[in-house]
């Protein structure tokens, strides 16, 4: 198992390196696109500031606290997109018969697909979300403890794994149908927007779905409640803040198993 994992990681790195090398050929264009994307993404945060400036708070969360949710969700989503955007465009790979080529190669399909759309300019999204996170940490008065210091990176990693798992689930669906996988895509882009606000504002059914089916509430809402010591978190059992990595591992496991079933089920169109 460990040797295979090591092989997979080194394969992924090799694939990514070659993609980075090809993108680095157009340095000017790359820098411009990254900068433009960063600038554009920044408008999202400005819009959020405008909204909170007018309303003061949303469900009792002020701009600093909302920015914390936004930053946690954004960094996690940005990292997942950076690592595994290949799953996001998997539908086109199936349509164009590229998957058949991958299957013929003596390497893991999962790893090959994951690295298929590595784009350096996605750093801009992570960067923009980090800016939001830094601002949030300045605007809120978090009572820092050693646990919380360790907690922050753990939560971001868990969130990234969670979003990556959703990307994989969406791609897995393509083995059976390439129609309307957009429903899952909604959960990635829409999910990062959704988790930028406190989960408590949504309809009961939505809250339940994003707790028990696709547990996105562990991406930002639960961690933020814990970091901010909000009253909602005061009577929690001790294990609740530790749920994000558990939920992420669970969802990732499910996604990986289903992916394996999908690969075995796949029959090419033969064209």
């Amino acid at each position, binding site marked *: 198992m460990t040797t295979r994992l090591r092989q997979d990681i080194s394969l992924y790195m090799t694939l990514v390196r070659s993609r980075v090398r090809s993108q680095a050929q*157009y340095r000017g264009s790359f820098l411009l*696109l990254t900068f*433009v994307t960063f600038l554009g993404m920044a408008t999202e945060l400005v819009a959020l500031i405008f909204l909170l400036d007018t309303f003061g708070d949303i469900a009792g969360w002020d701009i600093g606290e909302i920015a914390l949710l936004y930053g946690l969700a954004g960094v996690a989503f940005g990292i997942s997109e950076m690592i595994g955007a290949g799953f996001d465009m998997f539908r086109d790979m199936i349509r164009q018969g590229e998957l058949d080529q991958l299957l013929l190669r003596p390497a893991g399909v999962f790893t090959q697909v994951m690295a298929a759309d590595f784009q350096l300019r996605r750093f801009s999204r992570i960067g923009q979300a980090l800016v939001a996170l830094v601002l949030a940490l300045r605007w809120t008065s978090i009572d820092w403890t050693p646990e919380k210091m360790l907690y922050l990176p753990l939560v971001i990693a868990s969130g990234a794994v969670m979003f990556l798992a959703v990307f994989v689930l969406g791609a897995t669906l393509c083995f059976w149908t390439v129609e309307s996988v*957009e429903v899952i895509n909604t959960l990635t882009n829409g999910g990062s927007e959704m988790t930028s*606000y406190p989960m408590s504002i949504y309809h009961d059914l939505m809250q339940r779905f994003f707790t028990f089916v696709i547990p996105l509430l562990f991406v930002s809402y639960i961690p933020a409640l814990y970091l901010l010591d909000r009253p909602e978190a005061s009577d929690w059992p001790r294990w609740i803040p530790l749920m994000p990595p558990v939920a992420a591992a669970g969802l990732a496991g499910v996604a990986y198993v289903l992916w394996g079933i999908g690969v075995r089920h796949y029959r090419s169109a033969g064209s």
Partner: protein
Amino acid sequence: MRLYLEIVRRAFSRQLTYRAATLAGMTTNCFFGILRSYVFMAAYTGRVDARGWALDDALTYVWVGQALIMPVFMWGWWDIALIIRSGDVATYLSKPFDFYGYWLSQDTGRAICHTMTRGVPTMLTGLILFDVFLPRTVTTAVAFAISVVLAVWISFGLRYLVNISAFWLLDYRGPGILLMFATSFFSGLLVPLVFWPDWARQVAEALPFSGMIQVPADVYLGMLTGDALLGALAFQLAWAVGLMVVGRRLTSLAITRVVVQGG
């Protein structure tokens, strides 16, 4: 004119064939509509009014915005840039129709189709799920229809400029990405301009982007009457025509270049 109407008709039918994409895209528009509705419902807790808007105004605004995304085609459209890159543009230029007129007709047909297949169903979803209202008077409804047409033409004018930048720039994606972000921000799609601080709002209201979402939505909500309504439509018309003039001017410039390069 008959030729251009035919182009509109054909673009319409071509768009109509993308059934699966329609359903998929609807999901996204509606999901975001639902999210933003809940955000406003939470924001309005304990207040009946924000800058003169009630909650049902804000909710209706959200859904009008989501319904307009596809008709005004906010996200990426590179058809012209691609034919410029491939050199096929020469074939188009040598055909006996007006280049700009051809593409504008094409886009109008697409927009009519998107209004029916994406705009109307999205709006219906909002009406069913949330406290969203229909236009309150016949005048409002008619003015809104005109405003949407103008919104599409403003959007086309901007997208056209970004596309023909491919005549001069090696990488047209930069201006394109910039346009996408500027549109979603300055049009008021992310946050209605009415909730912006005054200084920023004044800037945004002068830019063409506000004519793509904010103005049609204001018309729909019945925020504008009489002279203010005519003023808003005139504002949209001015931008639509202005962008068209600039677009055509730049096209002729580019064509002389294409000829110089030997086609």
